[in-house]
């Protein structure tokens, strides 16, 4: 036994459960895979191009940022890749290359890095980027126009746009089964409802996203849509179309649940999810935008620190009465 061995002297605890940021992110990519594959199969090589460019440009922006600011290289944790992936999933297959690159620039630099990087962003970077893109180039998100050249065996009308402009009768033809199986037009990764649900359940079981947020978001959507529908069935569609069309499911499982911009306590998570769901339907039904999910999540990201103040009392805490 050597007398001069140097030992690792660090502090308790000496065990760790082995979880890692990179593992979480790779699992998230795995969960998103069914929805992405479906999009690529439907829209072909163009969709693959958008997704690939989005992931790679997000990683490159992060790389450039880390280099320029001389901060430790963080592309290995997979967070930039996830941001790129989710951004790509929210874009139409025909999005031009510069559009994707601007999107990832906004997401990585303005959405995440200016606030101090991973864990410090007050808003979901993907949602920030999509909001900026939607407001700046709203034509690209007009799925009826951008997907004009695609012809499938189902109605190529973007359900939410049809609902907004022509009322409930225009979306009667969409059955729940069709919507679940992705027989609707929309962004690359947001149309295959079943795939998103399966991915979401996988993430919930693995403990990577917080089920309270997803479930309450969906509940918020269903309840609000139902209330609107009951008050005026001619003007307002029922919960099915709101739940399975647009960005609802990807929002419930992948966007609203982003760690840094969502609450961590039980009751705040429920308020946050339900509130964002409620606001989504509110914007869709009486706002000017076709899909409210992005703005609803953005607004509740903003409210997150306030909501998260509702917290259980720490044990032994002495409350001083002023």
């Amino acid at each position: 036994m050597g007398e001069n061995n140097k030992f690792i002297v660090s502090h308790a605890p000496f065990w760790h459960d082995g979880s890692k940021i990179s593992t979480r992110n790779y699992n998230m990519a795995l969960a998103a895979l069914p929805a992405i594959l479906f999009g690529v199969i439907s829209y072909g090589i163009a969709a693959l191009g958008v997704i690939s460019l989005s992931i790679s440009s997000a990683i490159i922006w992060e790389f450039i940022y880390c280099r320029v600011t001389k901060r430790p290289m963080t592309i290995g944790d997979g967070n930039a890749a996830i941001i790129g992936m989710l951004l790509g999933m929210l874009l139409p297959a025909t999005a031009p290359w510069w559009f994707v690159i601007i999107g990832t620039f906004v997401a990585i630099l303005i959405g995440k890095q200016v606030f101090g990087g991973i864990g410090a962003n007050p808003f979901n970077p993907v949602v920030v980027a999509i909001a900026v893109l939607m407001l700046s180039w709203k034509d690209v998100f007009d799925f009826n126009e951008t997907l004009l050249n695609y012809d499938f065996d189902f109605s190529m009308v973007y359900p939410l746009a049809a609902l907004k402009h022509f009322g409930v009768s225009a979306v009667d033809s969409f059955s729940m089964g069709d919507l679940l199986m992705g027989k609707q037009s929309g962004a690359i990764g947001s149309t295959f409802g079943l795939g998103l649900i399966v991915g979401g359940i996988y993430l919930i079981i693995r403990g990577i996203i917080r089920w309270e947020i997803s479930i309450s978001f969906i509940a918020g959507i269903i309840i609000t849509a139902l209330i609107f529908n009951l008050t005026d069935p001619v003007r307002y569609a029922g919960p099915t179309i709101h739940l399975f069309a647009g960005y609802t499911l990807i929002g419930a499982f992948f966007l609203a649940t982003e760690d840094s911009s969502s609450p961590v306590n039980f009751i705040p998570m429920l308020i946050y999810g339900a509130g964002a769901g409620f606001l989504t339907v509110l914007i869709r039904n009486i706002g000017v935008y076709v899909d409210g999910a992005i703005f609803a999540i953005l607004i509740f990201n903003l409210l997150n620190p306030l909501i998260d103040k509702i917290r259980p009392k720490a044990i032994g805490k002495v409350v001083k009465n002023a």
Partner: protein
Amino acid sequence: MIKRSFIGLAKPRLEYGSLEDMPSLKQITTPKEITLLSTCPFDKKNLLFKKKATVKTGQKLLLYKESDEYVVSSVTGQVSSISSYTGDFGQSYTAIAIEVADDEETDDEFKSAAGGSKNASFETIKNFLAFAPGNPPVKLLSDKDKSISTIVVCCADSDLLITTNQYIIKSNIDAIKNGINILKTATGINDIIMVASQSQMHELSSTGEKVNQVNDTYPSALPHLIMKDLLGKVVPAGKNPEDIGVCFISAEAVASIGNAFNSSQIPVTKTLTLVNKDGDKTLVSARIGTPASDIFTAFNITLNENDRIIFGGPMTGSSVYSENHPVQPDTDAIIVQDRDDIPFISDYPCTNCGDCIRVCPANIQINLLVRFLEAGQYEEAADQYDLYSCIECGLCSYVCVSGMPIFQYIRAAKYELDRANTAEAT
């Protein structure tokens, strides 16, 4: 090491080690040299004994003039050096090394003072047994400001893997009974509560004392949670159980008291759980002060560069710099960790995943707290984010996805605030 399960939705389930059968106790032969550590800071001028002084087994060594701090020699021999030793958070110790002589002689000062268990007085316990195995908390019991009214005897082990107290219960229940009786008569405190795991309930029913059952998952056997769940008394933030009149004592300490009066000798061997690199557990009995390397040699444990030696449990213990670090009266376990098993600690920021919040038994907003701690804003952390509610279980660091040393941040903050407060007071 217990890893996160595939179903990450469930909370981690960390079960305490349990002893089913009576394990054999491996005796470590008396080493050539032992080292005793006293929590008294080294002060050369006031030392009461010098190098080369001869000591006998069980002899009480008062350290300094005008101080009643003492250590008890666990061997017969000659003092070879007296020096200063600095532990975690700058805690300073006096280290007394004793070279062991060939023939063992037992000191009989305690024998004449004790005079059998019938006449056990608290003075005798206080004057001779503070350094006994298990560290009986004699200072707390004698502290006039604390007014202890309840003694909790901890028969379950408080950290994972450790089975030391369980072994004592299995092997030496008579000493426990005797020790409890002595404690009752000596302190005049009749409210004694035993806390034990489910498997120990049967063995302890013979003592005739009140036995409360503690959950078998970590961290239920930590004092603050025992107070809250079993005694129904919540310890106010920043306070300890003794501040509200409850003193915790380990089963081993009770057994030491029982044995001491029974045999008229101060016990000098410490029972501890040794966990090797493969996670195999062995119960070991060694003289207090035995260097860990002697124990490793006895079990053919080889240590390499960058391994880790842990004194105490995997969640709350402390790692040591040298394989010659001595066994102390409160060393319940020695764990050896291979360098490949040492988890990585990173300086990654908190990603707000919320795993720590779900696992924290004290309901602390760790995600917010840790941001203040990282920035060194300890006052705010204490005022607004419940720093002092922390019961120091270490689960937050255990589950942290970013691999942040959250527990260490908390301890460092408490230490810094304490230092600032002391500086202000003087």
